[in-house]
Every structure is written in structure tokens, then in C-alpha cells.
């Protein structure tokens, strides 16, 4: 049995009476790639917000390996080893692609530790590798604002890879992408498998089939089912919850 990388224990959040996430308990193993599925409003993004500290939970706990990180400040959770990609791609628009990655390569959180020039030889190597992996070597001196939508998404993935967290949370990494771009994204994500523990929120089943090992289905803020792709696709509860209404599978 592999080590448990992420443990979520009875996590809930209450938005003035509305429980967006309601007693979710799940564990993700070291090196695993877990897909979170669920209709709009099922609580997938909120769950990521809770793990990464964007939203403070009202009850329950989150552990990264053996460290409890429940409701820490965002940058401390990030330092503890949680990386997050947002639904709307966010990168540093006025910096070049290379600068973006250099910033991500920086290991020191505070301002005084960074009062020096250059990012060092290690960072250069990492950045070169990541540029290769996300396929933006050609564009490395371009300002990020001029990248296409797909390229921006890859750059954000690149930021995460450079940051080198223990767990990567990806919120709809293929949103708004063409088929070809989606495929390239799945190649990048598959490349990360085994090196990082990854949790992905995704709607695109074609993409899910390309990358998924285990799937957790959320429904109305609770865990509805968990299993591999085939199990989920044949699970009667999942069929009842989705096929009848939305038919996302």
C-alpha cells in the first residue's frame, strides 16, 4: 500500500446555510491521479478552495501526509506542498514566459530572502526542462499576455510543475481548449503521473478516460461514489444522479 498523500476528513463548509461541501471524506495516495467528477454545483471547485485555503472550512480537517493544513493561509499551504491551477487561467501577464517560470522556481516566500540578483543555475535547468515539457521553449521570451488561451493554460501548468508541489490540484485544465490542445494537455498531465500526486476536476470525459486512474464522484456536496473509470460508468447511483438529468457520462 502506498503512502497517503492527502487525507480529507469530514470536511464541510457552510455559506450562510448552504452547505456547498458537506462532510466529504476521502484519501488520495502518493503518486495517484484522482479525478473529481460531478455536475455544476456538486462542490468540486469548493473542495479545491478548501484544500488550498482559498475558502475556510467550517468543520473537518485536511492533512498533507501527516501535517494538518486545515484553514492555513494560502501561501503557507502552498509552501507545505499544495499547488493549484485555477479554472480561469492565471499567469503573470506582463512578464515573459521564462520570467513566469523563474518566479515559480523561487523557493523563498518572503521579500528579504529574495533581495538578490538572478535565480541560479538550478532554476535555469528546471525552467528549461519545464519549457520543453509544456512546449513553450520557442515562446520563452514572449510576454505572457500574448499567448493563446491554450498556451496560457500550459504556462500555468508549467508554473505548477516548476513549483514542484507534493500535490497538484487542477481545476478544469482543458476548459475552452480545442481537441488537439486537450490531447496535448493530457500528454503533459500523464507525464506528471507518478512524480506528483494529482487531483483533477474535469468535465470532459474523453480527457478523463485518457488520464484517469481513480475517480471520485461528488453530488450535492457529498461523495457519491469512488472507483475506476469502468466502475463509475456502470455505477447505478451515478447513472441515476447524472444520466437522467445531465448525462455528463
Amino acid at each position, binding site marked *: 500500500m502506498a503512502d497517503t498523500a492527502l487525507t480529507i476528513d469530514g470536511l464541510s463548509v457552510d455559506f450562510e446555510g448552504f452547505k456547498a461541501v458537506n462532510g466529504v471524506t476521502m484519501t488520495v495516495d502518493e503518486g495517484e491521479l484522482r479525478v473529481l467528477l460531478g455536475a455544476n454545483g456538486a462542490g468540486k471547485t469548493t473542495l479545491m478552495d478548501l484544500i*488550498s485555503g482559498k475558502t475556510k472550512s467550517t468543520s473537518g480537517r485536511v492533512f498533507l501526509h501527516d501535517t494538518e493544513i486545515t484553514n492555513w493561509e*494560502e*501561501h*503557507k499551504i*502552498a*509552501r507545505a506542498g499544495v*499547488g*493549484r491551477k*485555477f479554472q480561469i487561467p*492565471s*499567469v*503573470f*501577464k*506582463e*512578464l*515573459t514566459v521564462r*520570467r*513566469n517560470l*523563474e*518566479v*515559480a522556481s*523561487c523557493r523563498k*516566500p*518572503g*521579500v*528579504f530572502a*529574495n*533581495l*538578490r*540578483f*538572478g*535565480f541560479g543555475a538550478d532554476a535555469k535547468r528546471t525552467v528549461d526542462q519545464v519549457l520543453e515539457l509544456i512546449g513553450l521553449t520557442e515562446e520563452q*521570451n*514572449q*510576454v505572457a*499576455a*500574448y499567448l493563446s488561451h491554450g498556451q496560457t493554460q500550459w504556462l*500555468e501548468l508549467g*508554473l505548477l510543475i516548476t*513549483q514542484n508541489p507534493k500535490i497538484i490540484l487542477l481545476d478544469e485544465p482543458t476548459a475552452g481548449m480545442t481537441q488537439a490542445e486537450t490531447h496535448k494537455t493530457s500528454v503533459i498531465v500523464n507525464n506528471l503521473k507518478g512524480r506528483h500526486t494529482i487531483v483533477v476536476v474535469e468535465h470532459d470525459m474523453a480527457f478523463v478516460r485518457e488520464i484517469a486512474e481513480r475517480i471520485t464522484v461528488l453530488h450535492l456536496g457529498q461523495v457519491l461514489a469512488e472507483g475506476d473509470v469502468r466502475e463509475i460508468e456502470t455505477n447505478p447511483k451515478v447513472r441515476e444522479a447524472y444520466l437522467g438529468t445531465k448525462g455528463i457520462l
Partner: protein
Amino acid sequence: MSSKRPIDWALYAVFVVLIMLAPLVMDSFWLNRVAKYLVYGMLGAAIALSWGYAGILNLGQGLFFGAGAYMLAMSLKLASQTSLQQGSDKPVPDFMLWNAEPGAPTELCCINKASFLWLPFQSQWFGVAMGLVLPVALAGILGTIVFRKRISGVFVSIITLALVLLVRLVVIDAQPITNGFNGLTDLGWFKVGDLEFDPYVVPTYYLVAVSLSLVLVSARLLVETRAGIILQAVRDDQNRARYLGFDVPSYQTFFFAVSAAIAGFAGMLYVIVSEFASPTFMDLTFSITMVVWAAVGGRSSILGACIGAILINVISATVSETEGFAEAWKAVIGLIFVLVVLYLPRGLGGLAHDLVDRFVVRKRGGGERALRVTSTSSQAAE
């Protein structure tokens, strides 16, 4: 960007050489004027640092300028002939005597309830130290509160604006120790050893010019450090920076405080060359005018903002020589400003940048595409 850096530094060098040569062509009257404008240039650079690089539009920079100015002015006031000859063994500012309660002791310690605050300012270097410490402390406290609470954009601008006006009123109201509306006038000269900085002599000009050069170069170096680059990342997307693990408020507060320190330093130099400190330093108009200089010169270029400030003031002074044109010139400034915002949102610095790109970078045939986003795209994101 790397291929443009030598050109950037060359521009800095040209600028420094030019201001160093100015005394060759100017009489002492103009030299004193230009020294003031160089101080304004330093303010422009301070604005560019916080606005262009940190994304913090401070509409109350006058607070830090004023703080620096008052701190040194207090020391220089005590060093003036009038303060020294009040018949006490310690100097006493004249305005305190004029306003003293009948029968009050004519001593600095106790001529009025708060006059003891002036005691340490008998040392000029205490005033100089406070001229930096006070702005930095104010900015540090304000920045910590505001940025930890994740207040951003226009709300920071409004808070800084309200704060400078608040402090201005407090200074005016604390008349017994600040001389209220009139400010501190009739100051002594700044002294280093035996050297006295008479505002109309060449050494005083060089004090300002060398200070400005040092500030410009240090500020420029500072934004090229890792911290400076991360700061720009924070400006572009606070959240992204946060989720990469950076302690975002510490960056914002640090650079906000550096900008405040530069403004405070500028305030002290201004007192040395103009021989007064007054609550007008904390007027709304002055704080916004600084932003105007920076915007015309280029908000994202430290040197550009500095040159913008100097240029506008030199032209103003030249035009105002002609009787009656001073007011018309103000209108022209208003017009220029509207036009710059509309057609040149990155100011003269941005224009220069584009020209350099066009004629120099391309000629070299470097494969690097030097692209810069107009600042409007980042504004739109707010």
C-alpha cells in the same frame, strides 16, 4: 529584455551626466530651481516604483514627503539664528514664543505642552534619521494593515488619499508645535562638518543631483532583484503569486515602504533647497500632481517618471517667466494630461521604450521579440 538592458543603463548614464553638467550653464538662481525639480524627479521615481512596479497607486505620497520634510525642518529650525538667539541656552523656535501663554517658561522643554517633542531635534542628524524612519514606519504600519487585509486597487488609493488629508489637518491643528498653516520657515542651513549647504551654491545642487542619481540607480537595481521580479508578478496576479507560496503582503509592504523612504528623502532635500516646510506638501493637489508627473513620464519606468517630473517643471518655469502665462500654462498641463492618458497611456517612457525596440533591437536582428503589454490591459483586470 536582456538585450535592451545596456540601452536602459546607457540612458541612465546620459541622464546622470546631464544633471551633473547643469551647473556649467546655469546661474545660482536657476541652479536652485533645478535642484527643486530634481527633487520632484525623485518623487516621480518613487511613484513609478509603487505604481508601475507594485501596482499600488498611492494618492497620498505627500504624506511621506511631508513627514521627511518636517522632520529635517524641525532640526534646521532649531539651527536658525532666530531660534538660537531667544535668550535661552537651548534654541527656541520663534513662533513658539509668539504664541506662548503669558508667564510660560521660555524653554524648549516646556514652553507649551508638546514642545518637549522638539528636544531631540537639536541634533541635525536626529532630524535626518527621523526623516527616513518616520515615512518608513508610517508606510510599514499602513501597508501591513492594508495589504494583510488584501485591500487593493482604488481602495488603497482612497485610503492613502484620506490619510494624507487627515495628517495635513492634524499638522495644521497642532499649531503650537507645527506653526499650523504657516509651516516652518526661516530655517538654518544643512551642515556636514564645516560644509554649509547654502541653497544657492553649487555644492547644494550636487548634494541633490548625486542623491537623485543614487536613488535612481538603486531603485532600478532593486526592481531587478528576485524580490523585484516577484513584486511584478504580484502586481500582475496576486492570487497566482499567493498560490505559488509567496507571502504577498510582505512584498507589497516592503516596496510601499521603499517608495515612502524615497519620498521622505526627497522631502528632506526639498527642505534643504527651499528652506521651508509647510502643510501644502500634504495638499491633495500636490499628491495628485506627483502622479501626473509620473504618468506623463511613464508610470512603469523609474527614469521616465523622474524625467517627466523634471521636464514638466522646467517647462512650467520657463513659460511662467512670461507675465500672465502661468495660469494659461496650468490649463495646458491639464490638456496635456488628458491627452497623455488617452493617447500615450505608458507616458514618455513607454514611447521611448517602443522607439528603442523599433530602431535598436530590430537592427541587431536579435530573435528576441521585445513585447510589452500596454498598461491598460492590467488596469482592465481590476
